[in-house]
Every structure is written in C-alpha cells, then in structure tokens.
C-alpha cells in the first residue's frame, strides 16, 4: 500500500523527467494523458483505502484522510480529462508548428510537476511541506500560464506569480503562528508541524493566537483561492493561459487552496467556536457579489468563466461559513466538473472564432455544435439551473444559511447569483442563436471529443436528480472530518 502511495506521488515526477527525452510533440501529449491516468488509478486505490480507514498515513509526513482523499480524487480526475483535451487543443498548433517539440517538453514537464505538487499539497501531513508544495504549484502553474511567451500572458503570469507568492508568504506566517502556539502546549517540539498533532492540540490553543493564525492563513490562501478582494490575478491568469491550463487552474488549483484553508478552520474552530463563520461569511458574500457585478459587463469568454469561478469560490466559502461543510464539498465537486467542461468548450469556441470576445461569436450551435451546446448547457449549470447538481448544492448551502439565521447573507447571496444569472443568460442567448453577419468563422479547431462534454454534463445531471450512496458517504465522511465529527 505504501508503495502505491509513494508511486502515486512519484509517477508525475518520473513522467516530468521522461518527457524531457521524448522527441515528438504528439507523443509528449500522449504521455501526459497516460501518466495522469496512471496517477489517477493509483490515487483511486489510495483514496478508497483512506475512506475505508478514516486515516491512512505514510510515515509522519504523508497521509490521506477523507478530506484530502476527496480533493485528491478531484485533482486527478480533472487532470486526466484536461490532458485528453490538451491533445485536442494543441493539435492545430502542432499542425502549424507553433507548438514545437521544446515547447511541448516544457508543457509536459510543468504539467506533471504541477500535478505532482498538487497531489503533494493534499497528501502532506506536514504543514510546512504542504506550504512548500503550494508554493511549487504557484511557480509551475505560473510558468504554464505564460507558455506561449507573448506580452499579455507574461504580464498575467507575472501578476499571478507575485500576488500568490505574497499571499503564500502571509499564509506561512499563519502556519508559523499556529505551530508556535502548538509548541507552547505540546510535549515534543518535533511534531508541531503535523496536522494530526495540531488537530489534537486544537482545543488547547489560545483563542487570540489561533485567530491571528487564521487571519493570516485566510488572506494568504484566500489570495490563492481567488476570494474577493484578493482575486485580482485570477481573471488575468485564467484569461491568458492555454485553455487546458485554465481548466486545471479553476478546476482544482483553487480547491487546493480552499483545502488548506479548511485545514485551518479545523484547527481554529475548537478554540473559537462559531468565530470562523463570522469571518468567512462576509468574504463569501463579497466574492459572490463582486463576481456577479463583473460578469455583467464581461465580454471575454474566458474571463467570464474566471469571474464565475470567483463567484463559486465565494459560494463554497459561504458553505464553510454556514457550517454546511458537506454542501461546500459537494459544490466544490460540481463546480470543478462543470467549470472544466465549460473551459473545454470555450477553448474550442475561441479557436473557431479567433476571438475571445463573446459579442463577436454568433450562432455557436450551428458553427460548433458540440462546443456550442456544451458551453450553453455549462453556463446554465453554472448559473444554478436545475436539474443540474449545482442548483442542489446552492440550495443546500442557502438552506444551511437560513438555518444558521444568516438571513441577510443568504438574501445577498441569492440576489447576486440572480444578477449573474441574468447577465449570463443575456450573453448566452445572443451567442447561441444570433445570426452571424459576415462569413462563417474559419478558425482551425482542435476537434473536441464529444465525451469530454457529454460525460461531465451527464454526471452533473445525474447528481442533480440522484445522489449515489458512495458519493454521499464520501462527502459525509469528509464533511464530518472538518466538522470535527
């Protein structure tokens, strides 16, 4: 079992090295697919173990509990599908030679390092190690964002890099404070960085110090998770990154940041019962509101999706704030799947129409039927229309908010979502059906595979009308883990 775990972490690194010695771009992309799929299989095995036994530790530094297993599964799932899409996405670039083999090498290496660092983030038991892995994700993904070295993408990458490094440094302060606090009460000073230890010591921490730690962690990881008002980097990075990278960024990277944050909730809540929710709810509401306000006038298709990501991060944070951890995790899942799919479709559309400006895209259903319909349905799912599962999780979260008597927050949340709904529908309808003046768009598209769109949609629909027992068990397990159950 340990071997499996280690190899789960090792395979990405090995592949990262391997692609350096591969000649041909296509085969590199193929390696990306197979490598991430292999990782995924191993992860599933470990996760299954982790769910069966509440905690599954390798030595002191590495572990899988239900929470991290849940996130790890998301990571590998999204990565595998995105790798499949990457093959389609880069096909035209390979054809016209702009995506040459050294570029492909760079992509492959960074791609796998990104994957590995993210897996390390969720599977490390050592706060410091987790922090380091988090920082590693920043660096690798930043380099992925500026893969094609044009001015705007480099600018975006630079913004992303600096902001997230600053944030992460602040998060480090939070970790340090927490650990120092723990070292005040713990017998041996060597284990104070271990989440397991911190979790045991949590009730004994002094409230003030715990709050200080949480505040720094919130700002730090919140920056990385793109919570308003620290979300500034997010639209730029998502907008200019290659689409598979954007999919992964908003699909899982931000979840990982939230994962670290939830670890902190775990530690701070016992000493300050009920306090974290009072910090988190305003952030959630602010994020949803700001995102909605920006969606209204957004014409860049990828930035639109980016802002909707901010919105959904806010919703998840609201879920945490309302104490509906299960709902928050469920929403995390739904959002990752849906956002990934929407990014795939948007990528195809951008390639077809040679622009990111939605007001210049017309009749998408006719010209790019798979991507067009996928994007439309994805938007409908994102704005919380049933029978897609996002509606369910949002309802669940709002219900929890009412139960916790955060009436104002819930009303603000729902009205902001409604605003986003209106803006998005107006865009989507015009995009989908408006008659194109001028010739049909002739951009060369990496033919997007139907299953890449149909599978996630089917999943969202299924979860919208039927909650399979295993998933609800997983969510319940992870949620009870945070809830200190």
């Amino acid at each position, binding site marked *: 079992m340990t071997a499996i775990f280690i190899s789960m972490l090792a395979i990405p690194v090995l592949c990262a090295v391997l692609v350096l010695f591969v000649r041909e771009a296509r085969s590199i992309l193929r390696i990306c697919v197979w490598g991430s799929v292999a990782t995924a299989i191993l992860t599933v095995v470990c996760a299954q173990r982790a769910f069966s036994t509440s905690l599954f530790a390798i030595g002191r530094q590495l572990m899988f509990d239900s929470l991290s297993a849940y996130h790890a599964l998301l990571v590998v799932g999204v990565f595998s599908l995105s790798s499949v899409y990457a093959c389609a996405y880069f096909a035209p670039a390979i054809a016209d030679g702009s995506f040459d083999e050294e570029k492909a090498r760079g992509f492959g290496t960074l791609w796998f390092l990104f994957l590995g660092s993210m897996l390390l983030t969720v599977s490390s038991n050592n706060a410091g190690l987790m922090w380091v892995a988090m920082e590693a994700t920043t660096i690798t993904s930043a380099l992925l964002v500026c893969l094609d070295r044009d001015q705007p993408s480099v600018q975006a990458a630079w913004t992303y890099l600096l*902001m997230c490094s600053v944030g992460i440094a602040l998060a480090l302060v939070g970790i340090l404070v927490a650990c120092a606090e723990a070292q005040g009460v713990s017998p041996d000073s060597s284990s104070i960085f271990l989440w397991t230890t911190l979790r045991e010591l949590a009730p004994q921490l002094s409230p003030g110090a715990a*709050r200080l730690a949480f505040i720094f962690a919130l700002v730090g990881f919140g920056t990385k998770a793109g919570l308003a008002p620290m979300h*500034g980097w997010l639209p730029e990075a998502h907008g200019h990154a290659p689409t598979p990278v954007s999919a992964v960024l908003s699909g899982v990277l931000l979840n990982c940041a939230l994962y670290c944050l939830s670890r902190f909730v775990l530690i701070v809540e016992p000493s300050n019962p009920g306090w974290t929710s009072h910090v988190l709810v305003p952030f959630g509401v602010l994020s949803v509101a700001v995102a909605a306000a920006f969606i209204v006038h957004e014409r860049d298709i990828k930035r639109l999706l980016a802002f909707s990501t901010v919105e959904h991060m806010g919703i998840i944070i609201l879920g945490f704030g309302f104490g509906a951890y299960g709902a928050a995790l469920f929403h995390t899942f739904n959002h990752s799947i849906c956002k990934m799919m929407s990014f795939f479709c948007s990528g195809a559309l951008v390639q077809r129409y040679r622009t990111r400006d939605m007001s210049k895209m017309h009749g998408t259903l006719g010209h790019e039927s798979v991507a067009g319909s996928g994007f439309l349905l994805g938007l409908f799912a994102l704005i919380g229309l*049933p029978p897609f599962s996002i509606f369910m999780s949002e309802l669940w979260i709002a219900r929890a908010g009412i139960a916790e008597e955060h009436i104002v927050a819930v009303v603000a949340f729902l009205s902001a979502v409604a605003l986003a*709904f209106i803006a998005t*529908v107006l865009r989507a309808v015009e995009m989908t059906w*408006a008659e194109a003046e001028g010739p049909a768009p002739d951009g060369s598209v990496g033919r997007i595979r139907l299953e890449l769109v149909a599978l996630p949609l089917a999943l969202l629909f299924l979860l919208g009308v039927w909650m399979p027992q295993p998933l609800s068990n997983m969510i319940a397990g992870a949620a009870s883990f945070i809830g200190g159950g």
Partner: protein
Amino acid sequence: MIWPFALAMAIQLASGIAALLFRRSNRVALAIGSAGSFIASLIGVTAAGQLLLSGGSAVAAMPWQLPVGELLVGVDALSAFFLLCIYLVSGLSAVYAAGYFGDPSDSKAVAPKAVAPKAVAPKAVAPMVFSFALLVVSMAGITLARDGVLFLVAWELMSISGFFLVTFEHERQEVRSAGTVYLIASHVGVVLLLILFMLLAQHGGGFSFAAITAAGAPGPYLANACFILALVGFGTKAGFWSLHTWLPEAHPAAPSHISATMSGVMIKLGIYGVLRVLSFLGPPPLWWSVSVIGLGVVSGVLGVLHALAQHDLKRLLAYHSVENIGIIAIGIGVGLLGQSTGAPVVALLGYAGALLHTLNHGLFKGLLFHGAGSVLHATGTKSLDELGGLGRTMPITAVTFLIGSAAISGLPPLNGFISELLIYLGAFRGAAVLQSEAGQSPGTVAALAVIPALALIGGLAAACFVKAYGTIFLGHPRTAACDGAADPPPGMRLPMIIGAALCVAIGIWPAAALRLVERPASLIIGGAEPLPPLGQFVAAIPLVALVLVAVVIGLIGLRYALMRNREVAVGPTWGCGYEAPSSRMQYTAASFAEPVLEPFAVALKRPVHADLPKGYFPAAANYEQHAVDVIAEYVLAPASFGLLSALRKIRVIQTGHMQLYLGFILMTIVVLLVWYLPGGGG
C-alpha cells in the same frame, strides 16, 4: 391513485424523446409528439376527473434520494383540479400543433411576412415537440410535488422548457429578447420562492409539505413574510399587474399553441402555488384578503385597458391574461375574506369562483389563441389593422372565436359568466355578512369594491373583444394579406370546436363543472363543518339559458314567417351619402378603442407619432399611436439602466494594475486584524 399521472407523464416524456430521435422528419416527430401528448391528456383528464368526483388523496415517496432530502409526490383535490386544467388545455394544444406545423410548405406562418426576407427553410420542430412534452410534464410535476425541493426543480424545469418554446423562432431578434425577458422574470420569481420555501422548511424542520403542515401555523411575522413572498414570487409567473411585463413579450413571440398552453395553464400554476402556500399559513388576517382583492382589481382593470390599446392580436390576448388573473385573484381575495371573517359560504363561493375561472380561462384563452394562430396561419399577420372580413372566408374560426370572445367578456350563457357570477354572489354575501356583523370594516369596503370592479372589467372586456372580433372577422378585408385566407386544416379546427363546445356546455350546465370545483375549494377552506353543495347557487342557470335559446328560436321562426315571400333587396352599405368608400376607410381597431380609453387616459401612456394634414391640399399624412407598458417603460427600464451604469463604474477596481490588487491584500489583512483579532464579530 398517483400511478395514472405517473403513466401519463412517462408517456409524454417518452413521446418527446422519441420525437427527438426522429427529428429528421418533422411529420413523424410531430405525429409522435402529438399522439403522446394526446394519450397522456386522455389519461390525465380521466384520472383527474375521477379523482375530483370521488375524492381522496395520496402521498408516496420516490424510491431514490435527491441530494437534498427525499422526493415526495402526492395528489389531492387541489392538485387534481390543476392537473385537469393542464391536461385539458395541453391536449387540445398538442392536437392543434399537429395541424399547425403539419404542412409548413403551404402555411405562411412558418415564414411570416414579418420575418427577415430570406426564406426560412422549414425548420426542425422536434426540439419544440420535446420542450412541449417537458413543459407539460414539469407542470404536472409541480402539482404532484409534495416537498419544496421537487417543487422548485419542477418549477425551474417549467421555466426553462417554456423558454425554449418561446424562442422557437429564435432567428428573430425580438423573439430572443422576449425569451430572455421571460426567463429572467421567472428566475427573479424563483429567487423569492427559494427564500419562501427555505423559510417554510426552517419552520417545519424539513422541505416536505407534510412536515410543514404538521408544524402548524407559523407566527404572524413569518406568516406575513411568507404571504408576501408567495404573492410576489408566484405573482411573477401568474402575471399580476406590475409583475406582468414578460407576458406581453413572450406570448406574441411563441407559436400559437404554445401561447395557448402558457397563457391557459402555465401562468395558472402561480395561482396553484399561492393557494398551496396559503394552506400552510393558517387562518388569514383580514389585510391579506384586502390586499389580494386590491391586487386583483388593479390587475383586472389595467390589464384590460392595456389590452384595449393593443394592435397586435396576440399582445391583446396576453394582456387579457393579466386581466383574467386579476379576476381569479379577486375570487381568491373573496375566499380569504370569508375565511378571515368566519363565513365559510363566502369563502366557498370565492374560491370556487377563482378555481372555476382558472378552468374557464384555460378553455377560452386556449380557444382564442388557437383562433389567433389560425388567422396568423392563414394570413401571415397578427396585426389587427391589416385584417378584416375574415368571417366570410374562415367561418369556423370566426364562430369559435366569437364564442370565445363572448365567454371571456363574461356574458351569459357561457362559462366565463358562471365563474364571475360565483364571485359576485360571494362578494354580495360577504358584504351582507360583514355589514350585519363587523359594520364599516375595510373588509366590507373591499367586498363591495369587487362589484363595480367586476362590472367595469366585464364592460371593458366586451368592448375590447367587439373591437378584436369586429376588426378581424367583420367588414371588408383591409389589406391583401387576407386574400385567399381559408379555414385551417381539420387538425386545427377540432381543438377550437371542442373548446367552444366546452365553453357553451359549462355555461349552460354549470352544476357539472362545479362538482369538479367543490372538493378543491373545501380543501383550501379546511374547516370541519360541511359546506353547502355549489350546485344550488346556479340551479336556475340552465332554465334561463333554455328560455333564452327558446326565445331566440321563436323569434327566428317569427322572422322566417314574416320574411317568407317578401322581396329582399341587396346593396352596398349606406355611406351616408359618401360615394366612394374604400375598405381602408373602415373603423380601425385604434379608432374603435379611442373613446373607450379616453376617460382612462391617466392610467395609460399612449405617445402619438403623427404628421397631420396641413393646408388646403394636404399631402400624405399619417398618425401612429402605441400604448407603452407603464411598468416596463417607466420603472424597469430606468432601473436596469441605472444598475448597468453603476456596475460599469465598479470595473475600475479591475484595471490590471497589480499594485492595486496587492493594495487590496494589505487593506484586507489590516481590516481583518483590526476587526476580528479582538474576537470581533464572534
């Protein structure tokens, strides 16, 4: 007791999906879809009717779980009644659709003159067939839902399928915008409904209706909050005045049988929602009834006034939906009045009137929209001032439309009159009861206000439909659009004939229809003591109708006897001495409506674009007048514009300057430290 409806829904959904599978051929897709819907309607109508007559109710839990809570379905008298309306109207519309799109080749409607010049190829109707099936299924689901989540899901499904139906001719920009307006309006309503149901769930400890009912009546604050939320949230769908703005957009945009279904039953589900929620809220205070009556009066009067001012037939009908929803609301208000003053008979009359009018409006509004569809199908236009004289070329459409017009104007001996009669009786009784007991209470005034309001609405509606019928079917054809118009194919005639027949039947023999209404009404009222049978209130109607018919026949006989072997001269209409009248000189819809609207000028904005004849030998002159919707024009438009510009201003915080973003980080951390570190907020 539920399975017949489950079966009907299954058949309908299956037929819709099958239509999608056979989307290559419009004919096949339509045949499958319409057949499925028709069978489903037969099952649904029979099951619902049987249940309404025999009574009883059932609740069952679905075998599987929603992500939030379990799925509960059930049926009782109230659901059964609305299921009856749904399946009746949707079945007729399905048959109509088969005729409407059956031959896109020769029909002008699929490529109307109004549309862009480039010829629209006969477009695939399979998606529309599927959405129609989905619409009906989701409406049935709403009435069957017994827990809030399922209710909301079905509700949203209804909105979305409705959206895809409205945007059927989505290559036209105005159709797209109508669709978006519709979707937005319904979603805004849904937000309120979400809050409403979450409050109820909070009160009842669960989304299931059983739990909410079991928790007993909520306290006054919660009850009032829920009442207002329900009134506004469901009112957006039902189209109470000031929440109605999507109606006159969406109905003209949709194909006619869709408008028939939407206006005939879909908006009624707002009424269903209000009634259902009222059943959770316990005994109503007096101000509820007063406010509902007020809302109803306003909706009725303003709705019919705006209808009078329209030149587009389907817009006119859409505004009449607002008017009729107003009448239904008045009925509900009278019912609430009876409840709050402990006069069960008044409540019975009010609710029975409201429910019966729901059914009636479904019938005659469906009939009228089908008639409008036939006119559009035959002439390619739905603008009143381009039509005329169709009564001779389209006799069946004309007769059925005339019956529908008389019915919607609430004239005896037709069904519209019966429901209004019940409301009148309720109001009179309520006034009498209150006046003997409570004296000058706001309730009395409200009850008495109902009487002139209904009278005024009836008079104006009559005026409006004289105008509509007269301009379309009487006189001379005004434009070439009317050339070669003919009655639609049998597939389209049949639903109109059936609808007209039902209107007459209910009007002449109301007791039968009232038996369908009895149980749901008493279900809403609750209460232990048995209520009097409704039949007694209309016992004399058949006799009156009979006398009327007898007298008519007698007079016909007399006239026949007199005119026998008399010479009957035929000539042109006397032009009062004017020698060269042309068909353009006939009284137009606008000129007919002018004196009716003139006294109400305050309530209605009608800007005029005119260049009037000048000098002795005036050149061409023209005069246009359009009624603008006050709410849409003077409330919603400025509000949304203000919001948009405000949101554009916000964008300065996202300029791409990293320094600014980092500044936000610093700001955030400082604020957090200052406010929360001392344990603030905790």
